[in-house]
């Protein structure tokens, strides 16, 4: 059942699966974002892909809010028919950033999760090949994109 | 009388000769010098004047100078022609505004460059390849007749099979070089060479047999003489086309330069050669191209036959041979600018599915044409 407008999609999500998600917001036309709970994020992702038609994975990345002590992992997804873009967000505590990997649902997230792992240190359980993607294999300089990264040459 | 005593006797005799006769002979030699030198010169002059023809053959026409000069000019022409196809100028400053010295500069630089032998490569085989590669086509070219009696190596009436035998040796070298260089690209390149030559060699041999059949003799000179009434390209048009395609395949020119495909295998089986080794392999590629083109001209385009321009028949024949060579080289370089490279399986399919049956058909037609037999 394809919802016509963004508001209906958000209302439906809140009504159907309140226990899976914290919040669902409409940013602007054709752009919705959903903040999911860390433990139940796999089920919500499967529902989004199968029932709501968000089958095209666009990208994934993380943001490090050092002041609030949390990291937010964002999955950008696209519905090819209605051209809606959905940002599935998951909040992770900074001290143990662990998260189930999305590669079983959207296979193309493989590269993006590897990059988030090497840049932020988020550990994705169940990822087939969690190795360095962009940094050299023998990189020991910590996680570059974290706010408290003291690599050489960086003057925040 | 065992061996040791024999040796001792020999040494004693030597010592006696040194003490007694040696000074006498030296003095006689010095006294006879004033008469000896003019004699020597005369002998040398007679030697050159008497066998002027073989010397000219060895050095000039089908020999060394012609081969090296062709390699130089072909490389220069190809780079300029390709540059023109790319709407640019090509080598320009190297030889006073025309770049004709460019190839000499390249080869001289390669000559003085350090060549690197990979440490766990088979040194003997690795160094043997650049030596063998140019010699085999050069050896084959000596059989080509530039005139009815202007053949360097007279194979006694069997020059066509001898040429094919020698030219058939050429693919063996890339195969063992690829393995010897101990590099993954060269191994794949050498396998591809093996596939390519097998599929390309057999149609050529069958077409050559067809022309020999039509001419009635296995000697290249007789084949050319038999083409006096009409060139063999017209009665054997299928063979003509097959041989042309086979020529490009044997010389590894662009539609079929699968073994040294720059874009997949870095340089194919030539990846590990550097410096003077690479210089020889590059020259060898042009020599095999020259060899097969000359055979193609002799078999199908009437060798040295052509209307006489200068008085002396020898000069006419050589002129016509070089003119036809130039035309074929231009066409093949033109093909290189127009067509992309084929995949290995497409080339093999062409070789086995199309060239092979067509060449057999051509052989059948020649038999019918020659003897009119209805089998």
């Amino acid at each position, binding site marked *: 059942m394809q919802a016509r407008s963004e508001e209906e999609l958000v209302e439906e999500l809140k009504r159907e699966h309140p226990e899976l998600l914290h919040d669902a917001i409409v940013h602007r036309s054709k752009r919705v974002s959903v903040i999911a709970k860390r433990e139940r994020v796999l089920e919500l992702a499967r529902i989004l892909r199968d029932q709501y038609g968000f089958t095209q994975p666009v990208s994934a990345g993380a943001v490090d809010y050092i002041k609030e002590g949390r990291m937010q992992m964002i999955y950008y997804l696209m519905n090819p028919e209605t051209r809606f873009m959905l940002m599935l967000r998951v909040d992770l505590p900074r001290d143990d950033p662990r998260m189930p990997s999305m590669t079983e649902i959207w296979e*193309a997230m493989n590269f993006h999760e590897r990059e988030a792992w090497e840049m932020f240190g988020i550990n994705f359980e169940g990822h087939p090949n969690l190795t360095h993607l962009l940094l050299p294999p023998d990189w020991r300089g910590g996680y570059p994109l974290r706010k408290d990264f003291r690599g050489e040459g960086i003057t925040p | 009388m065992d061996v040791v005593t024999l040796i001792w006797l020999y040494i004693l005799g030597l010592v006696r000769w040194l003490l007694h006769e040696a000074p006498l002979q030296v003095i006689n030699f010095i006294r006879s010098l004033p008469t000896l030198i003019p004699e020597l010169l005369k002998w040398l002059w007679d030697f050159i004047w008497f066998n002027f023809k073989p010397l000219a053959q060895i050095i000039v026409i089908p020999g060394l100078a012609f081969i090296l000069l062709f390699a130089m000019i072909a490389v220069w022409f190809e780079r300029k022609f390709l540059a023109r196809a790319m*709407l640019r100028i090509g080598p320009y400053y190297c030889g006073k505004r025309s770049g004709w010295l460019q190839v000499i500069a390249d080869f001289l630089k390669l000559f003085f460059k350090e060549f690197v032998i990979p440490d766990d490569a088979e040194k003997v085989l690795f160094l043997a390849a650049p030596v063998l590669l140019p010699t085999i086509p050069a050896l084959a070219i000596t059989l080509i007749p530039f005139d009815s009696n202007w053949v360097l190596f007279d194979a006694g009436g069997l020059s066509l099979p001898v040429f094919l035998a020698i030219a058939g040796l050429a693919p063996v070298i890339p195969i063992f070089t690829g393995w010897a260089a101990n590099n993954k690209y060269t191994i794949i390149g050498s396998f591809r060479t093996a596939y390519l030559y097998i599929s390309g060699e057999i149609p050529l041999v069958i077409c050559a047999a067809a022309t020999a059949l039509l001419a009635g003799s296995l000697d290249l000179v007789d084949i050319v003489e038999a083409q006096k009434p009409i060139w063999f390209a017209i009665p054997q048009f299928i063979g003509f086309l097959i041989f042309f395609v086979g020529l490009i395949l044997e010389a590894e020119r662009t539609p079929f330069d699968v073994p040294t495909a720059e874009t997949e295998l870095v340089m194919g089986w030539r990846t590990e050669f550097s410096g003077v080794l690479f210089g020889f392999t590059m020259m060898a590629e042009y020599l095999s191209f020259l060899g097969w083109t000359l055979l193609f001209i002799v078999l199908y385009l009437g060798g040295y036959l052509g209307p006489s321009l200068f008085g002396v028949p020898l000069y006419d024949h050589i002129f016509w041979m070089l003119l036809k060579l130039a035309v074929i080289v231009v066409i093949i370089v033109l093909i290189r600018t127009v067509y992309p490279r084929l995949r290995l399986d*497409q080339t093999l399919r062409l070789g086995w599915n199309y060239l092979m049956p067509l060449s057999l058909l051509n052989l059948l037609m020649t038999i019918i044409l020659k003897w009119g037999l209805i089998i």
Partner: protein
Amino acid sequence: MTEPEIKPEVMRISWGPQHPMSGQTRILIDVDGEVVRRIIADIGFTHRGIEKILENRTFIQGIVPIERMVMADTANIALGYVQAVEEALGIEVPERAKWIRSLICEMGRINSHLYAFGLQVECTGYFPAVFLWTTVDREVLLDLFEKLTGARWSYSFFIPGGVRADLPEGFRDEVRRAVEYLRRRFQDYWDAMVENPLFEMRNRGVGVLSREDAIRLGATGPVLRGSGVDMDVRKDEPYAAYGDLDFKVITEREGDCFARLKVRFHEIEQSLNIMEQIADEIPGGPVRTKVPLFPRSKPGVEALSRVETARGELGVHIFTDGGLKPYRVKINSPTLRNMYVFERLAELNRVLVADLPVILYSIDPWYLDCDR
């Protein structure tokens, strides 16, 4: 990157960064004879840490590093960043500036597609003819860029609030002349490439990507449209002046290298039409709104701008914390998505060693965009 184990009968070849056809990346292929069993794209050789650098640059300074992500198509990348900054800081852009932006983006797209043609042709060994023709035609566009912005490649012409300078007079009929010249030239390309039987033999039926796989694996740009999915950000979320320009989204059904090539061809024709429309109907008016040199952002604002670059859909997501510099800039690069599709193609259909460069450059990867 830890090396996965190798099966005995398979030979692992590494097309290192130094390989005529590998560009700036390393491709590990498991080869069994001539058939490629598995492709592993070892990217990251040109990772310059642009996302970390942008956190250390003010909003306007950030244009310089992000433009160097895709040098052939700087216009679209810079537009993505500048639009995100305008959305984050709430800056208005005058109408004429939008039209100029669309004009330059289309010229950049043609420039980048020429690059794609050149490499896809070169990797079939068709080196002399078409590959160097593309440099000749690119000079025409580079002269136009140079006349307008002063630089050939990274011209930093888009700034938050509009465009740095107005079109010099006489520029519009130069655009018309260039469009007419390029139309003639692309007829030559069509004859030299699409009508060439050997070139078609090398490209047809190679690297087939079906419609479902294209969506499932997250392909984008000409790769996606080559498989029959008509997704184009210029139509879905019109930005700059694309709302009131009429052009078609090109799709092909087969999804093989030849289809992707034809998609790029027709896209260039559409871009030429757009350039002509802009040259005829560009409105007058100011070119830039007044923006302070160091604009300060409101805390906690997010802005995601999506732009259709020549290689696919680029997303720039800016998070601000009220300072002079962006808190975090997330770049969704199109080539990273296409490289994953390239890795999976080995399992989707039978790939030979000679086909690999053809497939790789039908996807038109730009490794600097992939590694950021």
